[in-house]
């Protein structure tokens, strides 16, 4: 696997560090959200009862670097007996009443339709993926975003000029401009902690070790074993997300064990580094330019001949 720190020019960098977020043991306590805000002095960003189950955070943004999603689903969790019965309720019919999200949005929300008698409540803590191929980093004109020796991607608040190029560049919609501030902010994987040998604040606070921090190689190995055990236990839905170096971002430094399709959690199913095609685009542009130039020269020459 390509070590992005080495590629970035670090000589003999430490092992690439990252997060493995195992959502199968997340209890939705949101300690990660609070610990992150406390350590990084991220401001509170609004009291809004969203109605999206217990998720009143909404999404990752400039002032939310960890976000716990809550998804109420009519879908059985293997081997679980939820006990609830709503045989008379058609959630699609109920949708206009507001009891659940409109069907067209149902994949990401409180209640998605399914078999009666089934209910599961998924919780998952999302975070910046610290991509191997990080588009935000590629497009940053000031050098505010940089690759650390741990292979993580960090934005430097004293250099960022608020140009905002990084925001559409992120395939996950993670990095964001803070209102009234203008600069771009996101998870630093607690760069100011891990350099001192501490684990990031969110991982430290997580009571069930849903958020695990460590060398990415070890985490990937552990995650593969975990999926295997869950499959053996009958939780066939378990799958990894962002672990594969062959994916569209070259593998994420923060990857996940999910219990359903990524879309259910509000994650893109097939993220691709938005700058992937830049070189070829440049090549095409160059070719086109060359073609145009050639045509022009030809025209001139032809004209002269006239």
């Amino acid at each position, binding site marked *: 696997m390509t070590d992005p720190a080495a590629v970035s020019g670090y000589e003999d960098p430490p092992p690439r560090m990252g997060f493995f977020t195992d959502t199968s*043991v997340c*209890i*939705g*306590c*949101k*300690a990660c*959200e*609070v610990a992150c*805000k*406390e350590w990084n002095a991220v*401001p*509170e*960003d*609004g*009291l*809004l*009862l969203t*109605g999206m*189950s*217990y998720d*009143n*955070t909404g999404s990752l943004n400039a002032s939310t670097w960890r976000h716990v999603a809550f998804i*109420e689903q*009519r879908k059985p969790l293997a*081997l*679980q*007996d*939820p*006990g*609830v*019965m*709503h045989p*008379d*309720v058609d*959630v699609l019919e*109920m949708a206009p*009443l*507001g*009891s*659940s999200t409109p069907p067209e949005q149902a994949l990401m929300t*409180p*209640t998605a339709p399914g078999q009666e008698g089934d*209910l*599961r*409540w*998924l*919780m998952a803590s999302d975070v910046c993926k610290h991509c191997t191929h990080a588009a935000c980093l590629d497009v940053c004109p000031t050098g505010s975003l940089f690759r650390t020796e741990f292979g993580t991607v960090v934005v430097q608040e004293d250099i960022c000029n608020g140009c905002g190029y990084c925001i559409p560049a992120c395939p996950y919609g993670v990095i964001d401009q803070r209102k009234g501030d203008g600069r771009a902010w996101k998870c630093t994987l607690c760069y100011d902690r891990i350099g001192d040998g501490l684990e990031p604040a969110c991982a430290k606070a997580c*009571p*069930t*070790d849903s958020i695990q921090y460590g060398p990415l190689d070890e985490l990937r190995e552990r995650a593969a074993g975990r999926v295997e055990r869950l499959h053996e236990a009958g939780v066939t839905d378990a799958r990894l997300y962002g672990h594969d170096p062959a994916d569209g971002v070259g593998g994420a430094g923060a990857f996940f064990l999910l219990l359903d399709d990524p879309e259910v959690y509000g994650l893109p199913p097939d993220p691709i580094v938005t700058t992937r095609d830049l070189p070829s685009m440049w090549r095409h542009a160059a070719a086109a330019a060359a073609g145009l130039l050639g045509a022009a020269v030809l025209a001139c020459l032809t004209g002269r001949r006239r």
Partner: protein
Amino acid sequence: MAECHPVGFQWVMAAKARGAAVIHVDPRFTRTSALADVHVPIRVGTDIAFLGGIVNYVLTHEKYFREYVLAYTNASTIICENFKDTEDLDGVFSGLDPQARAYDFSNWRYEGGDVPAAAGEQDQEYEERVDHAEAQEVDHAEAQEAARPEVHGSGGAEALAEGARLQTDETLQHPRCVFQILKRHFARYTPETVEEICGIPRDTFLRVCELITENSGRDRTTSFAYAVGWTQHTVGAQYIRTASILQALLGNIGRPGGGILALRGHASIQGSTDIPTLYNLLPGYIPMPHAHQNEDLDAFVEAEGARKGYWGNMRAYVVSLLKAWWGDAATADNDFCFDYLPRLTGDHGTYQTAQAQVEGTCKGYFLLGENPAVGSANARLQRFGMANLDWLVVRDFSLIESATWWKDGPEIETGELRTEDIRTEVFFLPAAAHTEKSGSFTNTQRLLQWHRQAVEPRGDTRSDLWFAYYLGRLIRDKLSDPAHRARMGLDADGRGIERDRPVLDLTWDYPTEGGYDDPDAEAVLAEINGFDAHGHPLSGYTQLKDDGSTSCGCWIYCGVYADGVNQADRRKPYTEQDWVAAEWAWAWPLNRRILYNRASADPEGRPWSERKAYLEWDPERRKWVGPDVPDFDEHMPPDYEPHPDATGPEGLSGKDPFVMQSDGKAWLYAPVGLVDGPLPTHYEPQESPFTNPLYGQQRNPVRNMPKPGGDFFHPSDGEPGAEVFPYLATTYRLTEHHTAGGMSRWLPYLSELQPEFFCEVSPELARERGLEHLGWATIVSARSAIEARVLVTERMTPLDVQGRRVHQIGLPYHWGPNGYSTGDAANELLHIALDPNVHIQESKVLTCDIRPGRRPRGPALRELVNEYRRRAGITEETGRQM
């Protein structure tokens, strides 16, 4: 548990990862249910029926651990002939006085015995046992008040009279042996009954029974964890008793992986009962003396102690406590200042106190980290009480509702109170947070964990220790100042300064430290631990003497400062020691991690199985060995038999694990100890849309009812007007907030996670009442009406009970009008019918109505409530019948 004890829940997840099945019984599908293998929705207030059903399953299918039951429980003990069960009396036990609404416990006793007494409930028994010539007549009306549940905490009920012999039948066939009584008592609790009462389908119930019984026995153990979901009922103590019976039958007590785990509140509720903030206990669960005439130390120990087991040494614990408090002033000649202790005259619990405030007999109130204006049941009554005080002191982090009700409380808005009419002088004193002071937390597993001050308190904030210490000094200075005494007329009764000796003689000197001269918390811990005659720290309660040569502030904490070392401050990680991790912090008593651990071995002292080995008798070394501290004398061999006259710990045999009980047994049947029955019985809650299908007796006949006036109750099923309040509601906490919100609603990072008060309803109820997701709903009881945003969720499920569909409404109770995140307080709706044993409110069950839209403002709010009362025909008498 994931909702309210997320940190402790990590160990449930660790167990799950190793293959444990997790069962979650809760009316709601919570964050705990999300991770459980089975979620069992239950109708609120019916857990005795559910647990009783499992007890019946265990007995019927002979799934109990027979050897354990025979050796370690009172299954074979024969009960006296006078005892009549609820089976015989249609839902009540023998000895019920319907006028006094109290039981005479004498006919629940063991055969051939005097009664029990440590748990000695009542004056009548007290008189009997101390043989007062002129037995004090106990007024019937006072009988219930005199039922002193606090003494039950001392567990050491005397099972037998001196010299009397326990009557037993080891074949368990005698019709009056506990085992047979138990079988008859629980025979009604069939799977069909459970379904009919709890709304739990038969198949689900049987699956739970199978999971539990398959996982109990020699090789496996099952544990129960509960919190206030069990305690906050008019039958709360009996919920825990049912679980105790079940766990004792299954052999799941005193063994690794077993137990009934009480999840206490954050962060030191356990500590505040060990060294109590309760009116009726002294440190270490010693009952507060009652105001009997001429009561002295000997009479107290005689009446409240036990002869056998560790409560047999109660005198040593009490004398050492008196020496810790009054030092040199406490001598054998003056009964070690026993007379200095305050005396009880009845129930002085929190709800009784609020009523006394309304009546004008309670005139001053300290609130330290408590917010009754929104955090106690019938919050309105609490505010009316506070509005009738002379003075009120509130110490908290922020201006909580209990500090500001006089200017912006709900009654100001309705016009029922006017600020200018309120004479209460209110003092607000800002309090330091745990990061600003040193001290210990006693967590839910009895671990004392030390925390150190990180920063000095800011501004005027001070620690509670600072406050108590300097308040005491000021009071003592004033009491010893003749000018002050004259000015205040303190000597008017002619007793002079002698009257105030209990305060003036207190040992009240502590070294101070830091910028604010805070008393040194470790010096307090050392005082709690206790000293021997030479001033050396004691290392355990077995060293305590009853002759005044030792002092100890809390006998169960003795040893926390052994060798002069703060044992609570030990932080050796679990990764660097064995699985019991005995070197992390310190557990009371004597750093024992599992109580009653004699039961982890069979009667001969061998492990029940290799898989569950814990302590065992090593015949070579003549001692008990294992990873934990034995919960008994480590040199007592399994074949030890006491002399019939032996007392104290030596009075029990080498086979008796339950060393705090006077017969050394786990009690399947409690001959004393509870004021509402020796066996748990299903009663409907105070307010219920259903009739009790088991007995003619609808509710707990001896539940505590408030005096008429401040509280109104709903009609229950079958009474006219019951249909006005057709829904059940329950209150609870969310992970994101802390109790009544004083520690969370002012914090932006927590407030944004749960920004508003909401109620949770099922889609079916939403349709029935026209409630809209994220819209407003008004929830009404006979006490008040509140408004909440609506969350419609399938996590709330209707239940089929007695052929009817019932809806349950979820109400998190964190909110109030002050702070950063605001909302109505769910406690406005609650009544104050109480559990008679512990005087706790029934905040887990009430009936109510719910309607779309916001509640009325101003006087119209009371109009709405009054209209509901009128419609339901509610009077002072409603719901008060026995």
